[in-house]
């Protein structure tokens, strides 16, 4: 597994489409290159949406996604 250290955590639990993606974007804008954002979400759609967003968007990379019982955790690294 990729090694990473979480810089910031964004809690979007309870929020629905499009907020997890939109708030993740806003949060990564505040980070420095190399920082890793941990995103906590309860929206099952966030698994596909955040992955698709990170794949298509320049400057960010999805390093990991974990599916818990109720919470979906995503790790996004700012790459530029």
């Amino acid at each position, binding site marked *: 597994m990729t090694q990473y250290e979480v810089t910031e955590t964004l809690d979007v639990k309870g929020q*629905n*489409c*499009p*907020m997890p993606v939109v708030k993740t974007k*806003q949060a990564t804008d505040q980070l420095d290159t190399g920082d890793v954002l941990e995103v906590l979400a309860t929206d099952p759609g966030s698994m596909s949406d955040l992955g698709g967003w990170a794949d*298509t968007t320049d400057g960010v990379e999805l390093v990991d996604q974990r599916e818990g019982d109720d919470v979906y955790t995503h790790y996004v690294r700012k790459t530029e």
Partner: protein
Amino acid sequence: MSTDTSDAPAETAVDAPSRAELAARIDELEQQLAAATDDDQQKMSIIATKGTLDMAYPPLILASTAAAFGYEVTVFHTFWGLDILHEERSKNLKLSSVGNPNMPVPNAVAALPGMDRVTTTMMERKIEDNDTATIEELIDTSLDMGVEFQACQMTIDLMDYDEDDFYDGVTTGVGAATAIQDMADADIQLLV
């Protein structure tokens, strides 16, 4: 037979462009390609024409999400779509079950006075229970992310609205030509 084979390529060679002409043509095409791909900023243009509670969501959700993807987004609001940008009216968008066979109310009942209020309240409650973002939240978020909301000037005049009626940051004084320009420049164009 040997004459035939030597004649044919000779004739083609006369018609064919010279190496220098081909090189010049390639240069020209490369320049055109560079000009066409120079602007790598992706753009999305949405035309929002509907102002019911359900139809206000798709343009706002797509606009804010596209902005998150790094798109430059413009949403041109015209006719009832203008109500989405109207600060007061946007908080009061209605949902009608008349003509919507997916709603659990028969048309004959849905047409009774006060029924739009009932179905709207039902929908608002569902939105709240589901923690779905409100129209106002989506507009604020979109504006924060740099989405340009445009209010069609002709419709503003037609509806007798005032420029001050709209959210701060909404562009007024624009018409169809602006929308066409945005659509021509955009990678994604949608009419909602």
